[in-house]
C-alpha cells in the first residue's frame, strides 16, 4: 500500500486510462482460462484400472487403450504374484513366470505358452520392451500360466486369482434404533464417506463380492436399502438412510455396524460416579441422510495408540494405550453429560494409523478433536496445540495434509487455554504448550492433545477412576465454555 501512491502519481493520464481499459480484458481472459481449465478437468476421463486380488497381493493396474481395445502390461500383471522375467528380441518377447515360458510376437495374435499355441483376441503389442496383451484374454491366459483358475468380471475390471473373494451378509436388527450389521468372511477396511441420503463404503483393496443380489432391501424405515456397486476395479456398498448414519467396526474388522448417529444428549441429572459405558471398537462417524445438513456441535475423542502399538510403558503392567482409552471413555461420559455428542475413534484395543485418525476426524467435521496421551513423568495435565511444519502450504481451497491445522491454530489454542483454566480451577496443575505431535497438524478443525500425568510420583493414580473423571470433567467444562469460540471457528 505504501508504494501505490507515488507510482500512480508518475503515470501519465493517458497511460492510466489505457491500463484501466486493459484490466477488464485481462480479467475476462483470466476467467476464460479458469473456466476452460475447469471444463477440461471436469471432462477429463477417469483413468481405467483393473484390480487383481490374490493370496499373494491385492493390487491395481492401469488399463491402456490401443487401437480401440483395452490392453495391459503382462509383466506388471504377474510381477506381484511371483518370480517373473521378460526379454525383448526384435519383434519377439519372451516371458517367464517361475519355470513357465511364453513367447509372444509383436503384431501377431498367436503366442506359445508352455510349448503349445495360444490365440489372443487381438494382436500382441511391444512398446519399448514392454509386452502388452488384450485385457479380455486374461481369464484364459492367466490360468495357462498360473496353472490355477481365475475369475474375471470384465464390466467392473475385477480379477480374482483362486478362491480369494470376500463374502458378506447384511441384515438390519429389530432394535431401537435399528442397526445394519454386515459380517464379512475376512477383515475389511473400507473408506467411508457420505453422500446426500447415503453412506458409502468403498472397498478399493478388498476382494469383496456381491451377496447374491446387488440390491439389498431391509424392513426398516430408517435404513431401507443398500446396493453393491462395482466399477473400474473397485467395489462400493452404498447404504441409503433417512437419518444421519455412523459406522463402527467390530470383530477385528470382520463386522461393520451402521446405525443412526446419536442425537445430542440431554444433560444428565445425576452425577454419581458411574463407570463410563463401554461399547466396541473403532467408531467411524459420518453425517448424511436426507435431513438438512446442519453442522452439529460434537467432539471427536481419540485415545492414542492401541493394538500392537502400546505407547509408553507407564509402569510394569500399565500401558499408555489402556490408560488413554479409559480417559477417553470418561471424556465421552462427561461431554455427553453436558449435551455434547461425542465420538470415540477407538473404543477397543484397535490399532489405527495417524492418517486414519485424521481422515476419520476430518470426514466427521466435529467442532473439536481431542487426542489423549498419558505419561508417568511430570504432574497434572499438559494441553498441546499443533506445531505445524513450516514447509507445508495450503493452496487456495486445497489444504495441505501436513498443514491442515494452520487456519485453526488460533481456535485450537483458545480452546486449550479454556481447558487449562478449568483444570486450574480444580487445583489440577495444567500447562498449555505447542508440540510436534501428529495427527494434530492434519486436522481441519480445532485440535488439541492432552497428556495426563499423575499428581505425584504414584503412577497408579493414572488408573484411578476418580482421577480420570476429575480431569475429564474439567476438560469437558473447558470445551463447553469454549463453545462460542469453537462454533465461530467452524
Amino acid at each position, binding site marked *: 500500500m505504501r508504494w501505490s501512491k507515488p507510482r500512480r502519481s508518475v503515470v501519465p493520464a493517458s497511460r492510466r486510462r489505457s491500463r484501466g481499459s486493459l484490466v477488464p480484458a485481462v480479467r475476462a481472459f483470466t476467467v476464460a482460462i479458469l473456466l476452460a481449465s475447469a471444463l477440461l478437468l471436469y471432462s477429463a476421463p477417469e483413468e481405467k484400472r483393473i484390480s487383481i486380488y490374490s493370496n499373494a497381493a491385492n493390487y491395481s493396474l492401469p488399463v491402456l487403450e490401443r487401437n480401440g481395445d483395452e490392453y495391459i502390461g503382462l509383466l506388471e500383471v504377474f510381477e506381484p504374484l511371483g518370480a517373473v522375467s521378460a526379454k525383448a528380441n526384435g519383434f519377439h518377447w519372451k516371458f517367464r513366470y517361475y519355470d513357465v515360458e511364453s513367447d509372444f510376437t509383436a503384431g501377431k495374435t498367436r503366442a506359445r505358452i508352455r510349448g503349445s499355441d495360444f490365440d489372443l483376441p487381438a494382436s500382441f503389442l511391444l512398446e519399448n520392451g514392454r509386452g502388452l496383451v488384450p485385457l479380455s484374454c486374461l481369464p484364459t491366459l492367466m490360468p495357462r500360466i498360473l496353472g490355477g483358475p481365475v475369475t474375471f468380471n470384465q464390466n467392473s475390471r475385477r480379477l480374482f486369482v483362486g478362491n480369494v473373494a470376500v463374502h458378506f451378509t447384511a441384515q438390519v436388527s429389530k432394535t431401537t434404533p435399528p442397526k445394519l450389521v454386515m459380517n464379512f468372511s475376512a477383515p475389511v477396511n473400507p473408506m467411508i464417506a457420505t453422500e446426500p441420503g447415503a453412506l458409502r463404503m468403498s472397498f478399493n483393496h478388498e476382494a469383496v463380492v456381491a451377496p447374491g443380489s446387488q440390491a439389498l432391501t431391509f424392513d426398516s424405515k430408517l435404513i431401507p436399502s443398500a446396493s453393491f456397486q462395482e466399477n473400474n476395479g473397485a467395489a462400493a456398498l452404498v447404504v441409503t438412510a433417512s437419518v444421519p448414519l455412523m459406522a463402527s467396526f467390530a470383530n477385528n474388522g470382520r463386522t461393520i455396524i451402521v446405525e443412526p448417529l446419536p442425537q445430542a444428549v440431554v444433560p444428565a441429572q445425576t452425577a454419581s460416579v458411574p463407570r463410563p459405558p463401554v461399547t466396541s471398537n473403532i467408531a467411524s462417524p459420518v453425517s448424511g441422510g436426507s435431513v438438512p445438513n446442519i453442522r452439529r456441535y460434537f467432539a471427536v475423542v481419540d485415545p492414542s495408540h492401541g493394538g500392537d502399538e502400546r505407547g509408553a510403558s507407564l509402569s510394569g503392567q500399565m500401558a499408555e494405550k489402556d490408560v488413554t482409552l479409559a480417559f477417553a471413555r470418561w471424556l465421552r461420559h462427561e461431554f455427553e453429560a453436558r449435551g455434547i455428542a461425542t465420538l470415540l475413534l477407538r473404543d477397543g484395543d484397535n490399532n489405527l494409523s495417524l492418517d486414519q485418525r485424521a481422515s476419520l476426524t476430518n470426514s466427521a467435521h466435529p467442532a473439536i478433536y481431542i487426542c489423549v496421551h498419558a505419561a508417568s*513423568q511430570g504432574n497434572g495435565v499438559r494441553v498441546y496445540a499443533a506445531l505445524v511444519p513450516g514447509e507445508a502450504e495450503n493452496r487456495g481451497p486445497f489444504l495441505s495434509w501436513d498443514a491442515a491445522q494452520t487456519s485453526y491454530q488460533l481456535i485450537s489454542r483458545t480452546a486449550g487455554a479454556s481447558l487449562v483454566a478449568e483444570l486450574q480451577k480444580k487445583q489440577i496443575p495444567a500447562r498449555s504448550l505447542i508440540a510436534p505431535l501428529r495427527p494434530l497438524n492434519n486436522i481441519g478443525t480445532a485440535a488439541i492433545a492432552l497428556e495426563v500425568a499423575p499428581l505425584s510420583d504414584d503412577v497408579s493414580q493414572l488408573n484411578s477412576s476418580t482421577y480420570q473423571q476429575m480431569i475429564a470433567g474439567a476438560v469437558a467444562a473447558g470445551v463447553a465454555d469454549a463453545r462460542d469460540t469453537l462454533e465461530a471457528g467452524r
Partner: protein
Amino acid sequence: MIPRYLIIGVTVLLAVALGMGLYLWRMPGRVERGEPSAANTQPVAPPVSGASEQVTLYVAYDDAGVVRPKLVRIPLPVGRQERAAEILRALLTLYLDKFSPHPLGPGSEIRDVYLVESGLAVIDINAAFADGHRSGVLVEELSVVSLVQTLSANIPGITRAKILVEGRERDTLAGHADLADFYDVPAVTQVVAQLQNAQ
C-alpha cells in the same frame, strides 16, 4: 671326528631356533589379549583440535519440564559442519552424565550433522538414541527442541532442521514427537520460549 666347537655352535643355534619358534607360537595369544573387547567396538572420535569457545546449550530438565540455556566452553574445530556436530555432542555429554537432567539411553550418539542448502541442518542420530529414548509427548519434545535450538543458536544461518535416525527418515522419536517433517527454527524458538516456564 666332528670338531667340538662345531657341535657347540650347532647346539646353540638349535636352541636359539627353538626359542624363537616358541616365542612366535605364543605371540598371537598375546596380541589377542591385548585387543579391546568386542563390546567396545565403536570408533573413538579423534580429539578435537581448536581453541575453546563459549557456546549456548539449550538443556532440557525433566523435573520441571523446561528447556534452559547454559553457557559452556568447549574446544571447537574450524569447519562449520564439524562445529555443529561437536556442539550437539557436548549437549549429549550432559544428557549421558550420571547426574543428567534429561537422561538418554546408553550409547546415544550424534552420528553427524549436515548443513545443506539454504539454511537446512540435518541431524543424524544413531539408533540407540531413538530406540532407547523414553516415550512421551513432553519428554520427546524436550529432546527434539533442545537439539534444534542448540544448533540454531550457535550456528548462524540455520532456518530449518530435520532429524534422521541412522541416516533414514523415521515417523516419530519414540512414538510421539514427529520426525517425519522439517522443523522451522522460528517455530522451535517459540516452543522453547514456552518451555522456559516451569509447570
